[in-house]
């Protein structure tokens, strides 16, 4: 017995030393390094890079969702690749090429389904989150001759639904998986020309598609889908000359306070402020350029905005009470994305052509840290795991 212990105990100690200390993932995240097709794994407690995962294919315009345990990141790449990365072991758990050309994805309310929206062939494909085995295929067929539309603005919604927009068709679809693997599809036609992206309110009630081809936005109340899609901000920008848009705005996340929602305008250097109770425009705040991301600090007190090429070296901060710009920052060349820490004391900002991510204190606007990265684009923290629509 004693002899056995003497043999086993040192063995166990060696094993324990080989494993790293267990850790949670709540302060972790990933940054897409676009040019090299790799993923930087980072943490926000000491603002450091923990490691990298490579071999993820074409990551231009890549986006990420998380498993509900915050351990796995699902990466949607431009080349149709869907990769499940274990951010703790820094390894690829599974990788499939699911289509020719994809744009984004979502994870279902129960965490069991991962949906991918595709440009070619246009549609949505749904996979088992665990195994990445195919579950359902939803071709975005419209009109009478079997044409397929590019799909944009795919989000998850309560009651095990996915909602998305058809760019070429001008439609919004709901795919309801509450009854199992064969979704019930609800189609809303003539919602407006060229929806380019969509977003859902944090409570999962309202879906909004931004329209490129005409003024205004399309609003769907998911508590009452039978009421159909309403046009909001219809008169916005009417008669004003539109400026060219060198990068499509992104409607990821929902910048809103108790009273207002903040949205990027298209073809105008303005952030739109909409009253939440009646969806009427309250103001248009002039900003530095064509807004790309309009994001609220988690407490709703500030809105952070970045801009399209060629005015993309700047970030502006709007105070949500006065609706005034309170700060203009220059985080580097080609600012692509911003991500707040879960409670918003920091924001991480990627500057692609400066090859760095800058971490700002959102109270003092001081730089806390800079991390060198290879053409960084999207930044995604694990608190997204528990947020509808992210």
């Amino acid at each position: 017995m004693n002899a056995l212990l003497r043999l086993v105990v040192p063995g166990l100690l060696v094993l324990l030393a080989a494993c790293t200390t267990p850790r949670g993932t709540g302060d972790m995240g990933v940054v897409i390094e676009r040019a090299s097709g790799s993923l930087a794994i980072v943490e926000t407690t000491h603002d450091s890079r923990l490691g990298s995962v490579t071999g993820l294919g074409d990551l231009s315009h890549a986006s990420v969702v998380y498993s509900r345990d915050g351990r796995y990141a699902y990466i949607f790449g431009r080349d149709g690749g869907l990769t499940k990365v274990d951010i703790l072991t820094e390894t690829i758990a599974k990788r499939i090429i699911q289509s020719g050309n994809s744009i984004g994805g979502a994870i279902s309310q129960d965490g069991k389904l991962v949906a991918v929206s595709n440009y070619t062939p246009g549609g949505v494909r749904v996979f088992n989150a665990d195994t990445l085995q195919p579950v359902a295929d939803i071709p975005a067929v419209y009109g009478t001759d079997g044409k397929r539309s590019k799909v944009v603005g795919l989000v998850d919604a309560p009651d095990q639904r996915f909602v998305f927009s058809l760019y070429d068709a001008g439609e919004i679809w709901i795919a309801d998986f509450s009854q199992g693997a064969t979704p019930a599809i609800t189609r809303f036609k003539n919602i407006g020309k060229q929806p380019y992206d969509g977003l859902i309110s944090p409570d999962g009630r309202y879906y909004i598609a931004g329209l490129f081809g005409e003024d205004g936005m399309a609003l769907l109340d998911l508590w009452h889908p039978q009421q159909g899609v309403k046009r909001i901000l219809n008169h916005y920008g009417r008669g004003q000359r539109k400026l060219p848009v060198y990068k499509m705005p992104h409607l990821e996340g929902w910048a809103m306070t108790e009273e207002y929602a903040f949205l990027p305008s298209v073809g105008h250097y303005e952030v739109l402020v909409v009253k939440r109770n009646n969806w009427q425009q309250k103001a248009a705040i002039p900003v530095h350029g064509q807004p790309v991301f309009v994001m609220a600090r988690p407490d709703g007190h500030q809105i952070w905005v970045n801009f399209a090429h060629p005015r993309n070296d700047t970030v502006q901060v709007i105070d949500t009470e006065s609706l005034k710009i309170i700060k203009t920052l220059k985080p580097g060349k080609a600012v692509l994305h911003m991500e707040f820490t879960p409670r918003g004391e920091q924001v991480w900002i990627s500057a692609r052509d400066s090859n760095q991510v800058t971490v700002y204190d959102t109270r003092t606007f001081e730089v806390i840290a800079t991390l060198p990265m290879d053409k960084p684009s999207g930044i995604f923290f694990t608190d997204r795991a528990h947020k509808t629509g992210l």
Partner: protein
Amino acid sequence: MARGLVVTGLLFVALSVSADEVSAPRRDELRNLLLQDCGSCHGMTMKGGLGPALTPQALQGKDREMLVVTILQGRPGTPMPPWQGMLSRADVEWLVDSLYQGVTP
């Protein structure tokens, strides 16, 4: 024989003109613009996105002048924006010729 010489001479002139117009550092800038900024709509590998594929296969048989004008003036009613003001005609011709040959990140 004399003809051959003249043709070679002309080719040489044409080549040196385009090389003069788009300097080496400018070409680097344009390459980055093509991959990153055009890439945000056309894909960094030019295989298409919101905008169509701009691979050599996709552009095969398409008129050079039509493509140049599309880039300079954009396509009204679509997200393809006009780049004139930011890019010169020589820049755009260089971009189109690079696309015909194929660009890789």
